[in-house]
């Protein structure tokens, strides 16, 4: 039951012309290498107070190594586009990195999450996965808003930035969503060249739109491939170099999630992080998997090990469709 009246809801204001001016001055249209390690990429391109989106999530072909690096560097006051996500939001809250989230769906909460909400350290705004994805699609088209056939009539709608206007052609009531132009996006891809031309194989949530919509884009890539290799099949290159600011080589970058067609997830780790979430032991989880190591590679070396890494690849038995 709702008692409070919906407030004028805070949302990231779309500013298509502001975005244009930003990318004109900051995105590199020249084919210049932009490979760097995760430390440098996050240091350069994730700032306190940024609106952050990740495509997919910590457990499903997401930029898990970059999420850990953001926590390691202790970014503050991030506003998270929390669609299609499991533990990522919980980790960012526990680590003190996130203070706001636009929610589509986040699975797994826990006592730390409840405390943050109760103490006012976390504000949530209501959307859905599809609505958040549409907001990114609108931004990826360079426009300020977009109509949708969903979301109307829900309480999420009332507590969101969505509005209803009259369709200028049919006169029918039409829900419109503000475009979402995030400050920074982190995306895990199967292949990228040194310039940021990138491929994702298999399904995804909104990796292309997310890359286009965001002021700053960090890719973590399972493989760095030669540009000439990408030129052999241009139909597979969905993210163009000129929207990408940093390419971070990151084998097993989606660990503990799967990178489809390359390696399976680590169910033991998945259970560990869910358990830590519900048993209020995320502090220990972060200490082990994030703070105690200096890098993703060190984490793989010290806490995952060769045997496990080999097993993860062995357990991924499907290749069809995941190569050029």
């Amino acid at each position, binding site marked *: *039951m709702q008692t409070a009246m919906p407030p004028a809801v805070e949302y990231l204001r779309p500013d298509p012309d502001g975005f244009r001016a930003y990318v004109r001055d900051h995105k590199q249209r020249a084919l210049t290498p932009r490979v760097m390690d995760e430390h440098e990429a996050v240091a350069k391109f994730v700032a306190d107070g940024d609106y952050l989106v990740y495509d997919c999530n910590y457990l*499903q*072909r997401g930029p898990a190594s970059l999420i850990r690096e953001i926590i390691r560097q202790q970014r503050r006051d991030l506003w998270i586009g929390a669609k299609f996500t499991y533990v990522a939001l919980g980790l960012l809250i526990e680590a003190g990195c996130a203070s706001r989230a636009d*929610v589509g769906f986040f699975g797994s909460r826990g006592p730390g999450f409840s405390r943050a909400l109760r103490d006012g350290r976390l504000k949530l705004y209501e959307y859905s996965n599809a609505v958040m*994805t549409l907001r990114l699609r609108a931004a990826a088209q360079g426009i300020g808003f977009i109509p949708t056939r969903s*979301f109307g009539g*829900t309480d999420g709608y009332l507590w969101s930035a969505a509005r209803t206007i009259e369709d200028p052609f049919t006169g029918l009531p039409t829900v419109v969503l503000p475009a979402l132009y995030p400050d920074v996006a982190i995306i895990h891809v199967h292949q990228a060249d040194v310039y940021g031309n990138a491929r994702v194989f298999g*399904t*995804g949530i909104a990796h292309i739109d997310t890359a286009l919509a965001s002021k700053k884009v960090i890719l973590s890539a399972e493989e760095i491939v030669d540009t000439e290799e990408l030129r052999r099949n241009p139909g597979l290159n969905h993210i163009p170099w000129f929207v990408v600011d940093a390419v971070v080589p990151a084998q097993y970058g989606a660990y503990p999630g799967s990178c489809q067609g390359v390696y399976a*997830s680590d169910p033991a780790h998945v259970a560990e992080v869910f358990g830590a979430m519900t048993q209020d032991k995320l502090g220990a989880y972060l200490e082990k998997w994030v703070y105690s190591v200096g890098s993703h590679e060190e984490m793989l070396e010290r806490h995952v090990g060769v045997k496990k890494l080999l097993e993860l690849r062995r357990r991924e038995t499907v290749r069809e469709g995941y190569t050029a």
Partner: protein
Amino acid sequence: MTPATSFNEREALVCQTARLIDDGKLYWVAGGGGPMYAVLLAQRMGYAPNAQYLTEDGVLAPQPLLPFDPIQTMVSARAGYRALQWGTMNTAQDYAALGLVDYGILNTLQVDQWGNINSTFLGEYPDAGRRFGGPGGADSIAAMCWRTILMTDQDRRKFVDRVDFISSPGFLDGSEGARERAGLPAGTGPWRVVTPWAMYDYDADRRLRLIGVSAWVTVDEVLAECEHKPQMAAEICVLEPPSEEELVVYRSELDVRGQTADAGAWIVYQDGRYVRAG
């Protein structure tokens, strides 16, 4: 078909839903559990050999390799195996927006007399109560597929007069045309609610209505697990229990890890009737 003599209530829920699957239609299934199993079971049992499903990450008509690792129900190689298309969340919602998706199948936390669904908050939003994960893909499924099927447990806290928060739309306030006035596509809405104990549809006034109960419960027992008392069909049928044939397929080809087995009460056929075990 041989009536089964020992099964779990979760298994019964999947079998019951599988029988609702309409051949040659397209389903948007939430997550990778019961809704997906229901379509796959209907395919394999021959109830609907040509029904197909779509998932939130844009997997269309796959031939999934079961089982999946925990959580890897989407954006994974096994879940998307030999699909007819790999898209994204936007391709999935486009198909639904265009009226090309016949049915959606959802789970939920709470449902009310008008079929509204809550997966966001129990209590007084925004401050006094417990926060859940949000609508996820359910809002777009419930808004844009022609008909929505809800799979849930029979629990009085789940069946309420008015959900605490409408995460995904049913018939909203129940008035005629309420969905259309809210900008939702015309002619869509809730269609069935299935629980291990009962089956509901919606009456001409768009109110939840009990139409059948399982063989191991009475109507009164079902109503006792409804905080909101549903409308009653003129005749309340007794639902066919799962068949042995269904359970063989379900256990050997679908829920091959037996995850369902831990999740619900067991029903056994004893002394000429079905009873809850132990």
